[in-house]
């Protein structure tokens, strides 16, 4: 019964969101406030109903209602509760429902915070959101319905892939969706701006915080996914340039560009058309990601069971929304009045370079990911594009961005004098080179390691230096402290985010350049030496888990001056699904990770195949990314970014 109610709610949402699409748009066209006002109600209503719908599906999973086809296929009564819940979105149909839930949530939030926005603007925004919602709801109802019942209920579910029962894996989709779908808000704002025919300060002041929210979630989601993959998948890697990973990375790159271009749009009233185009592209990349994951056109570790008919439907959606938006852009962008001039060497100039680099990166990742499809069509041959390509191409692109990042905040708007900052640049350069040289001299390293370290140091030192200059040099400690507190939070946010980038770069450089991989058979009692660590294979025992049996190895980690620690890697066998998995044992700290994987039993419990990865500074990678996200959150708490920014005019005033 609950499921039927959920199904009914979703059907209602289809009608309501169609209403939300048509009526406010008509209201905007014919200047009817009443019609436009309906958008608030429909937005709230849509969210409540989708929430109820989602809740009913979750309920079915929790009580393991195997009369529901989806639950029977994807869940199992023995699954721990948390994985039953996360199983709701661990499949195609359920994840689409989550998508729509988050979409309507954002629409409701925009309606709530936008009560004092010019009514025409907000009704067009919500109308666009309504169109997106109705498309996806109809996609769900007609091709991917999670509420279908089985005529004969199953006794037990079939969904028991042990690899999927992991906290990091369970939680990263919601974060990613909060990111992807959040970009729909800026998309709708762009459509509204194009339809109205102008972009003013209100628009930009609204766009920034919503982009920032989406960006923060996307950043966290990608970090979680990468961290999970590293800890669970057993070969010490954390990014594989897999099509699905790229599908989440491209919107992130576009959103980062958007964040920076909207700064220029806000401060200097220029680059508005470009900002709108970026917002359209960012959301389109989200849609493209949805398409890639679910259509089966590309091979991926992550893809849901692919279905070309679903793929065609999503392609239609893509054509409609992206094609429509780009067509609208082509027609109307020229009429947007462009603002002020700037010199190439200026803050605007630096931000433009940032945008060129990030946009080019997104385009490059897109090309690399889709290239096999192109070649197959043109040449009928199969080519594959993997990590070696992306790494070779992505790093040179990012180097100038990082170089610029340290100093752009020091450039003045409109026209900057390089002479003013050249001394600071040189100072930071010298110190960075010096410290890097010392490090590489002690520990040895290749040219690329040197470069990576240099860039990381350059960015940290440059950012800190810039911060001090901003607060004020030559001040007493008290004065400095007072002034520092008065700095807007967005300044702190920016510095923190940029430092996060630097930490990330250092983490990537060190963990790959100084990594040690060992792959060998190991005898019980034998010791492996890695740098100054001794790893001794002590024992192997058999262990029983809730739904698995395993061979668990006991390894001792001996370091001078530190207590001995023990690691227990396992090789598990799940009888229900007849699957063998390896559970790595990881010893983590700030300086390194020791990653131990127990392989096959080579000889009667005496010899096992062993893989050990020593990755220095690898946790700096995720720590750096989290700093970026924190920086974003910090910026959000700045007053000027409050979500409900509005003007003190009569909102009922209808402006042209």
């Amino acid at each position: 019964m609950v499921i039927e109610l959920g199904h009914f709610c979703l059907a209602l949402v289809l009608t309501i969101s169609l209403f939300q699409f048509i009526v406010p748009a008509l209201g905007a066209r014919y200047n009817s406030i009443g019609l436009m006002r309906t958008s608030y109600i429909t937005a709230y209503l849509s969210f409540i109903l989708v929430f109820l719908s989602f809740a009913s599906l979750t309920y079915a999973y929790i009580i393991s209602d195997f009369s529901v086809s989806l639950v029977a296929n994807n869940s199992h009564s023995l699954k721990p509760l948390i994985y039953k819940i996360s199983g709701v979105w661990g499949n195609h149909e359920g994840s689409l429902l989550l998508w729509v839930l988050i979409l309507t949530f954002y629409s409701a939030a925009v309606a709530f915070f936008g009560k004092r926005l010019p009514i025409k603007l907000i009704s067009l925004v919500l109308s666009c959101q309504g169109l997106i919602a109705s498309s996806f709801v109809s996609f769900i109802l007609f091709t991917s319905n999670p509420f279908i019942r089985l005529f004969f209920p199953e006794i037990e579910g079939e969904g028991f892939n042990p690899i999927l029962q992991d906290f990091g894996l369970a939680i990263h989709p919601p974060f990613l969706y909060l990111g992807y779908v959040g970009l729909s808000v800026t998309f709708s704002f762009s459509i509204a701006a194009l339809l109205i025919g102008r972009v003013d300060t209100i628009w930009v002041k609204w766009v920034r915080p919503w982009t920032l929210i989406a960006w923060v979630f996307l950043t966290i989601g990608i970090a979680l996914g990468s961290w999970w993959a590293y800890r669970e998948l057993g070969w010490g890697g954390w990014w594989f340039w897999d099509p699905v990973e790229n599908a989440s990375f491209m919107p992130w790159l576009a959103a980062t560009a958007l964040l920076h271009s909207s700064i220029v749009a806000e401060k200097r009233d220029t680059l508005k058309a470009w900002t709108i185009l970026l917002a359209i592209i960012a959301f389109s990349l989200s849609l493209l990601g949805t398409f890639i994951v679910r259509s089966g056109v590309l091979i991926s570790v992550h893809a849901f069971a692919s279905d070309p008919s679903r793929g065609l439907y999503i392609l239609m959606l893509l054509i409609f929304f992206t094609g429509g938006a780009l067509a609208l852009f082509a027609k109307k962008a020229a009429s947007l009045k462009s603002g002020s001039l700037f010199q190439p060497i200026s803050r605007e100039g630096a931000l433009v370079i940032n945008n060129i680099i990030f946009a080019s990166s997104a385009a490059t990742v897109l090309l690399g990911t889709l290239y096999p499809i192109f070649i197959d069509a043109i040449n009928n041959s199969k080519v594959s594009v993997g990590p070696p390509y992306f790494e070779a191409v992505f790093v040179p692109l990012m180097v100038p961005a990082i170089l610029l990042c340290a100093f752009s905040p020091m450039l003045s708007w409109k026209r900057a004098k390089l002479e003013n900052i050249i001394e600071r640049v040189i100072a930071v350069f010298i110190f960075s080179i010096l410290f890097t040289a010392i490090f590489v001299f002690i520990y040895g390293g290749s040219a690329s390691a040197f470069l990576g370290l240099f860039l990381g140091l350059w960015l940290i030192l440059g950012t800190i230096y810039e911060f001090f200059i901003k607060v004020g040099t030559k001040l007493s400690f008290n004065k400095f402290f007072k002034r520092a507190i008065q700095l807007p939070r967005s300044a702190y946010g920016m510095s923190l985010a940029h430092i996060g980038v630097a930490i990330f770069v250092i983490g990537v450089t060190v963990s790959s350049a100084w990594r040690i991989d060992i792959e060998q058979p190991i005898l019980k009692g034998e010791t492996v030496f890695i740098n100054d660590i001794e790893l001794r294979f002590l024992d192997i025992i058999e262990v029983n888990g809730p739904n698995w049996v395993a061979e668990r190895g006991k390894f001792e980690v001996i370091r001078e001056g530190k207590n001995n620690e023990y690691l227990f890697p396992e090789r598990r066998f799940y009888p229900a699904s007849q699957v063998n998995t390896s559970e790595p044992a990881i010893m983590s700290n700030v300086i390194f990770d020791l990653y131990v994987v127990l392989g096959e039993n080579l000889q009667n419990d005496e010899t096992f195949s062993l893989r050990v990865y020593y990755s220095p500074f690898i946790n700096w990678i995720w720590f750096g990314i989290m700093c970026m996200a924190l920086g974003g959150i910090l910026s959000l708490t700045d007053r000027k970014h409050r979500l409900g920014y509005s003007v003190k005019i009569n909102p009922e005033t209808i402006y042209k």
Partner: protein
Amino acid sequence: MRKIYLYLPLLFFFILVIFFARQLILDKDPSKLPSVLLDKSFPSVKLNQLDSYKLFNKENLLFIGEPSLVNIWSSWCAPCQIEHEFLMKMSDEHNIKIFGINYKDDKTDAINVLKLNGNPFYAIGRDEDGTQAINLGVYGVPETFIIDASGKIRYKHVGPILEYDMNDIILPILNKIKRE
């Protein structure tokens, strides 16, 4: 002039869509690799004899002077068991000569499969460590090559040959080659 640039994103997007649509409509499985050995001579392979069955090597293909199949199979491979009946059909009813390469298999298990389910193979060889199959570009079992009378590879079928594959793919191709 600026107006034209504004249409560029739309243009690129449509080019993208065309490629996607083609991919979807053709419904290709992106994980299936077509053979790069098409129209090339079947490579030499060094195989071991399986019991007393006639040993397969490259010369057989030329000697028989007619199109044939080379099938890579193992006793531990489930789809191979399923396609076995269709191999038998092709061998018995359609008089097609099928050569077998037993891939990374145990001698006894292989012999048992043939004794139990029948032997569709005109000649068989064993590739014990899988290195010979690498020369053929094999990446999974079962795979089947269609060879023409002059010993050239004309088609590679990845995966088991089931009824549909036999009637709609393999047999038509063989007939086409025969008529040449």
